[in-house]
């Protein structure tokens, strides 16, 4: 019936699309025109299944023009992602090589425009064009390897979950700690000597003191015997164990993972945990987990580093421990340990290091005759460290806050003392690898070593007259968090700031406006939107273009809702999601996006030994590109939410 040849213009158009991606980019325009004239353009919506594993092969192979398609396999009824295809990727090409059924299933992840290329067309090409043949054999070989790799990984993972104890501790963050089940307990009124005997007979380092119904009352460990019995003069051996036991004992429920336990150890600084039926002291003991159980298999371990930091006696030692922590970070990142876990660990480690640096400085000053004045004070971490997000050792951002002294003389001496403290601590941090802040936002700068009234003058000014420059500067100060000294003082400042914002709500609008300064680069993968400055040409500023828009948004919302806890971006989003149900879904998306970015930046920074801030998009793998693209959509949504909420379209620059 058809007497005419296909439309040149349309064929030309499709050929141009096709020719952008391999292997068609190596073909002559004429060849591509021929292919284009044979294909169909398909549009599919999110969630559509294109083909299923085991199904008879169709007549087409597909190229993604827009959108994304995931290829997955099913093992034991669970789906395992094998590949993610986006712009320019071909899939369903196995058909060309004689297999009869699909080896994987394909599902559209986001609305997609696909070119369906007849298998016959590709077969012909493979025969007539050596470069195309090479492309396909290479791609097939690679993808077969890839599939095998992904599958073996998935199977390994499953196996290790089923057989606890195999593999490395870190690889199995989700591994449940093997508890000691035959817990030996003793009654509270038996003599200490008897308890010691039971412990040595059973060769155990601790014993739970329990009531008759086996409800735990306390715990006695080797350390207790050493410190409270042996080292103490007089006859104590006959006294009841209840005299020396640590009470109450820290109780948890069974089924805790290694990650949970490491967190718990770091947070509580305890070494023994008692498992009871419901996790309280009101039910019988069913197990015990000791530091030893958690630590034994792993040499480099956050709890060990934590202990070493707390017991450091010199700056050199402190610096060495921070180096060890860096190694740990590498291991964690390489093993894909959850980022919230990593950032919690590193916040604790960095905080401990700062505390130690302050203790060293105070002790040194005391030795030199400079006494700590009796004024309530607080060491503040600012910016990313304030948000508990500093994984890499980027610049220092810190400050000192102290209670206003009563008279002029003590005001001056306080300022002198705290400034000196700031300088010393900052120097120790430099020795531990935390570079000084180029903008000098440090406690060693008199401007940022202030009494409460001084700080509130700043904040009042920023809130009252939010000019752009002050705003940009102030974003860092709004993320303060007490690390040493009086948390109450920091909280007091936070409340005053919130009250100040409450008074002049116009500030939030400007603050929100500031959060929109960096719109997400939506055309990211079409023509890499890269930074223009010379040094970082062709690179993408992940901090300014992706992280700041999110952390800024979270900060504004946290301010609006008067959140007084010292939270990071991820927690801020989650908290706001609870407070603002309409935002719940998006805030969870934003939280996850931010975690991804933290990981990406850390990975990159570790690899390049840099701050990780500038990334060459060409070096991203497909998963990362996919994730980044989704995340720009999320940022866009968060920004338009801010725009709407604060009616920013009405504010002129």
């Amino acid at each position, binding site marked *: 019936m058809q*007497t*005419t040849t*296909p*439309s040149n*213009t*349309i*064929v030309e158009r499709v050929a141009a699309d096709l020719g952008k991606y391999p292997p068609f980019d190596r073909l002559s325009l004429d060849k591509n025109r021929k292919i284009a004239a044979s294909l169909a*353009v*398909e549009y599919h*919506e999110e969630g559509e299944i294109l083909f299923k594993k085991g199904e008879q092969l169709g007549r087409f192979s597909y190229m993604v023009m827009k959108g994304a398609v995931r290829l997955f396999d099913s093992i034991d009824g669970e789906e395992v992602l094998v590949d993610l295809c986006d712009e320019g990727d071909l899939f369903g090409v196995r058909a060309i090589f004689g297999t009869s059924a699909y080896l994987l299933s394909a599902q559209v992840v986001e609305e997609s425009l696909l070119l369906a290329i007849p298998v016959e067309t590709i077969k012909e090409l493979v025969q007539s064009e050596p470069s195309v043949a090479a492309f396909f054999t290479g791609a097939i070989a690679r993808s077969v390897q890839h599939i095998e790799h992904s599958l073996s990984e998935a199977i390994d993972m499953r196996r290790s979950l089923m057989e606890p104890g195999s593999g490395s501790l870190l690889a199995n963050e989700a591994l449940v700690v093997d508890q000691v089940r035959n817990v030996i307990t003793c009654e509270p009124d038996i003599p200490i000597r008897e308890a010691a005997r039971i412990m040595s007979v059973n060769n155990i380092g601790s014993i739970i003191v329990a009531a008759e119904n086996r409800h735990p009352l306390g715990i006695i460990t080797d350390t207790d015997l050493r410190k409270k019995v042996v080292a103490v003069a007089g006859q104590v051996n006959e006294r009841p164990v209840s005299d020396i036991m640590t009470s109450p004992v820290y109780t948890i429920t069974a089924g805790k993972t290694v990650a949970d336990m490491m967190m718990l150890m770091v947070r509580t600084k305890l070494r023994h945990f008692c498992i009871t039926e419901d996790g309280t002291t009101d039910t019988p003991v069913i197990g015990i987990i000791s530091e030893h159980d958690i630590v034994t298999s792993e040499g480099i371990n956050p709890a060990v580093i934590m202990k070493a930091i707390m017991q450091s006696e010199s700056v050199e030692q402190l610096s060495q421990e921070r180096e060890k922590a860096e190694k740990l970070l590498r291991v964690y990142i390489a093993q894909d340990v959850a980022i919230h876990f990593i950032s919690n660990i590193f916040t604790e480690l960095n905080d401990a290091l700062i505390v130690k640096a302050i203790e060293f400085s105070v002790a040194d000053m005391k030795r030199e005759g400079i006494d700590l004045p009796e004024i309530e004070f607080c060491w503040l971490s600012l910016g990313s460290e304030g948000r508990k997000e500093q994984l890499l050792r980027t610049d220092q951002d810190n400050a000192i806050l102290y209670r206003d002294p009563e008279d002029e003389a003590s005001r001056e001496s306080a300022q002198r003392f705290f400034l000196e403290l700031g300088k010393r601590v900052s120097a120790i941090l430099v020795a531990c690898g935390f570079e000084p802040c180029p903008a000098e936002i440090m406690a060693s700068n008199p401007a940022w070593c202030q009494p409460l009234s001084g700080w509130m003058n700043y904040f009042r000014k920023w809130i009252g007259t939010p000019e752009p420059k002050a705003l940009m500067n102030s974003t860092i100060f709004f993320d303060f968090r007490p690390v040493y000294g009086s948390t109450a003082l920091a909280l007091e400042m936070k409340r005053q700031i919130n009250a100040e914002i409450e008074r002049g709500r116009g500030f939030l609008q400007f603050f929100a406006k500031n959060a929109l300064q960096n719109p997400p680069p939506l055309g990211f993968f079409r023509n890499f939107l890269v930074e223009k400055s010379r040094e970082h040409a062709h690179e993408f500023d992940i901090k300014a273009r992706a992280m700041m828009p999110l952390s800024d948004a979270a900060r504004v919302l946290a301010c609006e809702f008067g959140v007084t806890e010292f939270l990071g971006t991820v927690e801020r989003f989650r908290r706001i999601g609870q407070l603002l149900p309409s935002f719940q879904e998006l805030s969870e998306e934003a939280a996850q996006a931010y975690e991804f970015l933290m990981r990406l930046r850390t990975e990159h920074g570790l690899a390049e030994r840099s701050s990780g801030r500038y990334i060459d998009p060409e070096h991203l793998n497909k998963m990362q590109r996919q994730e980044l693209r989704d995340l720009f959509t999320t940022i866009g949504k968060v920004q338009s939410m801010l725009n709407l909420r604060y009616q920013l379209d009405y504010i002129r620059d």
Partner: protein
Amino acid sequence: MIELVRKIQVSMRCRKGLLPESICRYVSLFDHPLQRNTPLEEVRFVIFDTETSGFDLVRDRILSIGAVAMNGSKIDVADSFEVLLRQEAIGGKEAVSVHGILKRDLNQGLEEDEAVCRFLDYLGNGVIVAHHADFDIAMVGRVLSRRYGIKLFNEALDTASFAKRLEKGPYYNLAHKSGEYRLDNLCERYGICLYDRHTAPGDAYLTAQLFQRLLAVGRKAGIDTLGKLLLK
């Protein structure tokens, strides 16, 4: 009724050999009209666009026709069509500057009657889809009635109205903000890259992509047969 009479007249003229073969073949396709309950997957849609020398139905002429077919939900590039028309009475310079068709190009085109016959051959009994379809259909209809005394028998759908119907419901008054449903705006709204704008085949291809997406939206609203699509 009038329709039936017209068709009978055309058939008679065909039997007498008064009309070209293409025209007769085209008309005979409508002896058995498409069933309302035909699933959309089995319908051949022909998305088309014309470039004209102006917007006056009487004075202005078609300069080119571009079309691409959608079988079910697939745009079939092989099943596409493009023709330039050699027109003596070419319109003002403005039209040329919009679509970039020069007199020189048109001289290489086909005569109007041959071009339209070829288009009918290509079109067959497919369902016509066009953006602001009335105008394009009327332009082709003028040629057919002038030359052969017939009209287009195909079912037709306007993507602008279809989009409006899906987004706002059938009773939305567009009168005061027609710009919202211009092809460019719709393409932007549905994430379709604009290129080859203002050439007949280029616009036809864009319209086809738009229609493909609208159909997907429509399917969710339960539009799965030709009857539901055409509101008949």
